[in-house]
């Protein structure tokens, strides 16, 4: 139904390549799902924008390109004609519902706008009924209240549901979903995927689903298109692509997908606890209105131990308190009650100079590879900052920095460069080198691979596993992704709303979880839930 032919999109001069999209042709039948897969920068989102007529003004299509919907070439339309098509025939769901929805307008009104702008003359009560019906249809429990709510009062899942409600309000023939679940928790992601599939079955719409996650592909796709730097390198049915990938790049992507049950236990002995957390509680005061403050308990009596040479994963959805634990352990935030012992010494009683000394023993690698390095500081200064703060001479610190950068896989020529010259994965390596330079007892990786592409993610995970074996590193690995946790950790601690709900060896958690919540997390992992899944069945792709 939607046919894209010889689509080429020109980038402005000075970009890293001439064409954002090069000669891409494919089609989507009504009622079927096409997954557009690729790493960041592969051009998959640009295709989505082109189909919805939302290309930024700096990009334009080459003459021979055509996008046909029901016989019409969309690329020849003027803005006026586009306005009639968007929303009515082509719907779009974006990655970040918080920024895609208007923060100053109740969502119900935003959905009602769709009807109004497509010329439906309805009475007020009729509009209200329709909006609320639609919200109920997308699985919002209290549609009357939510339709009057502003986006900041809603959860991420509710926002994305509202966004979907807007996109499908006019029952479009084509729905473009650009990474709609990337910002969501794994259980919410599952619900949103089910919702989309449900809608599709009802309205027979064609779904173009842009994603980087092969788990999702395995779950929902009928056909898969793989993009690599603007080229369509592979196109075929899900079964063909996942099981019999032809192109080298597709095979590389598939090999990088983290797999459950593919775990190599660490070699170190595990007897002496390095880090002991007992009865850790933390409460934030949250303003619920101008006059009222409510205490929000983010950690509730958390206990755990980390032994020497062990990798422990803290797994939980957003709001489970896992990042607060990292902040408590690094003393970046205060603690209400509880104790943290590092090598037997109480971390909480220390102040001033003694705190400085102990502090370096717990180091942290952050999530955002762009925010975690000072843009105005050379790499050598960033990496040697820790040793210099400990009183190492600057020449020695430089040598150490060079050594560590080699260990994390960057050459010595990285030393005198600035962060903007490096890619996300390289920056994350620099962040790891900086943390290691302080010779930590415990390394905390706070969602350290979540912002990375799947192939880069696999490289960083390999690096961490390698460091664990070579340096006997003790690691606390904080993640929302059970697949990643399964790959690196010896033990997993599952957190829910500030409570430890389950703790145990990684294998045991995956094979027989004792807690209902852990079970639901496992079920929600894309590509895992159905045993028929091609991805699980064909474990070895290469």
């Amino acid at each position, binding site marked *: 139904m939607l046919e894209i032919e010889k689509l080429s999109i020109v980038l402005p001069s000075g970009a890293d390549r001439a064409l954002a999209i090069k000669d891409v042709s494919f089609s989507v039948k009504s009622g079927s799902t096409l997954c557009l897969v690729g790493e960041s920068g592969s051009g998959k989102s640009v295709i989505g924008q082109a189909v919805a007529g939302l290309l930024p003004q700096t990009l334009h299509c080459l003459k021979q390109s055509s996008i046909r919907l029901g016989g019409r070439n969309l690329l020849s339309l003027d803005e006026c004609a586009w306005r009639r098509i968007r929303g009515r025939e082509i719907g779009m769901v974006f990655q970040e519902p918080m920024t895609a929805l208007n923060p100053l307008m109740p969502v119900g009104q935003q959905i009602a706008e769709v009807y109004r702008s497509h010329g439906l003359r309805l009475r007020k009560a009729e509009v209200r009924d329709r909006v609320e019906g639609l919200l109920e249809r997308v699985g919002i429990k209290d549609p009357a209240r939510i339709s009057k709510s502003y986006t900041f009062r809603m959860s991420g899942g509710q926002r994305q549901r509202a966004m979907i409600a807007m996109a499908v309000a006019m029952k479009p023939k084509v729905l473009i979903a650009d990474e709609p679940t990337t910002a969501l928790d794994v259980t919410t992601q599952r619900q949103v995927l089910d919702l989309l599939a449900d809608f599709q079955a009802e309205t027979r719409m064609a779904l173009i689903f842009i994603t980087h996650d092969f788990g999702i592909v395995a779950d929902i796709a009928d056909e898969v298109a793989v993009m690599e730097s603007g080229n369509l390198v592979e196109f075929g049915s899900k079964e063909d692509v996942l099981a019999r990938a032809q192109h080298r790049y597709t095979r590389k992507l598939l090999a990088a997908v983290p797999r459950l049950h593919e775990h190599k236990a660490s070699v170190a002995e595990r007897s002496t606890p390095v880090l002991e957390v007992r009865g850790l509680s933390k409460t934030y005061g949250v303003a619920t209105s101008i006059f009222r403050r409510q205490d929000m308990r983010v950690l509730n009596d958390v206990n755990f131990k980390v032994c020497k040479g062990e990798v422990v994963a803290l797994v939980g959805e957003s709001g489970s308190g896992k990042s607060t634990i990292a902040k408590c352990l690094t003393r*970046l935030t205060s603690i209400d009650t509880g104790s943290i012992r590092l090598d037997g010494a109480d971390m909480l009683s220390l102040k001033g100079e003694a705190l400085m000394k102990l*502090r370096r023993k717990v180091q942290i690698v952050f999530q955002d590879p762009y925010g975690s390095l000072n843009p*105005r*500081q050379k790499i050598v200064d960033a990496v040697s900052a*820790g040793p210099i703060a400990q009183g190492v001479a600057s020449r020695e610190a430089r040598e150490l920095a060079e050594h560590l950068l080699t260990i994390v896989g960057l050459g010595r020529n990285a030393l005198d460069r600035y962060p903007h010259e490096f890619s996300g994965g390289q920056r994350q390596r620099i962040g790891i080198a900086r943390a290691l330079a*302080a010779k930590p007892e415990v390394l905390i990786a706070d969602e350290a691979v979540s912002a990375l592409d799947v192939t880069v993610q696999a490289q960083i995970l390999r690096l961490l596993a390698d460091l664990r074996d070579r340096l006997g590193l003790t690691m606390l690995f904080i993640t929302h992704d059970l697949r990643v946790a399964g790959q690196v950790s010896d033990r997993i601690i599952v957190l829910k709303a500030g409570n430890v709900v389950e703790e145990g060896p990684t294998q045991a958690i995956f094979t027989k979880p004792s807690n209902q919540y852990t079970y639901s997390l496992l079920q929600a992992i894309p590509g895992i839930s159905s045993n028929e899944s091609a991805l699980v069945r064909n474990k070895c792709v290469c």
Partner: protein
Amino acid sequence: MRYFYSVPRSVLTFCGFNWQIANGAGIIALLALVAFGASPISPYGAWEIAGTPCLPPLSPEHLLGTDMLGRDVLSGVIYGAQSSLLVGLASAGAAIVLGIVVGAFAGYYGGIVDDILMRFTEFLQTMPGLALALVLVAVLGPSIWSVVIAITIVSWAPVARLIRAEFLSLRGREFVLAAIVLGQRNTKIILSQMLPNALGPIVSTASLKVSSAILTESTISFLGLGDTTRMSWGMMIGNAQGQLREAWWMSVFPGVALFVTILGLTLLSDGIARSGSARKQSML
């Protein structure tokens, strides 16, 4: 200090082809040249009675004419550049340093330190700047340094607030958190991690600060409260205001000099701000 190496370099790199910066910097460079080379350039001394009083412009030997005492207007304008530049740079520099120190402490430490410093800053900001400066000069006595001190006192507060705001947002950035966890000292974190990243907006306000300092100085001199031993544009305009109808050149030429200087500084500030935001956009 080696922490600052990266800042001027990046500013220079991105300023390469900006016409505003080119013109603004050209004007300021010319001004500096005139101020430093005043004695060789200027045809007469600043106070020297060089010819017949009230000669109009384009008279032989007096390009811009003479004033009512027979002093050469061109020489006055040239020597006036000295005090304008001195007061402008010294007081803007002092105000920026003071503002950075106060703002950095308030933004980094927060809590009670922030409260005390910011209440004091706000207290200063509630007073009308020019009136306070005039009172201060009157109290401190008519010398160029009391003018500098007065202008510094009335102009550091906005810098402090700007730096504080930058520091508040930088305080939560991951690279600052990482530096804290690494055990870097507070002063080192402020100087090496945060300040270089907060200087962008300061660089563009700096030249506006200089221009407002120059304007304030001429106002003070115009009112006759400034240093009477130094030639100044404001003083020339003030002295000549009675003759504006009969001898317009005595006040118009120092006025033009003032106008061109302010224009140059404003261009510079705009250009820097624009190249800064252009860089931000290209980074996104």
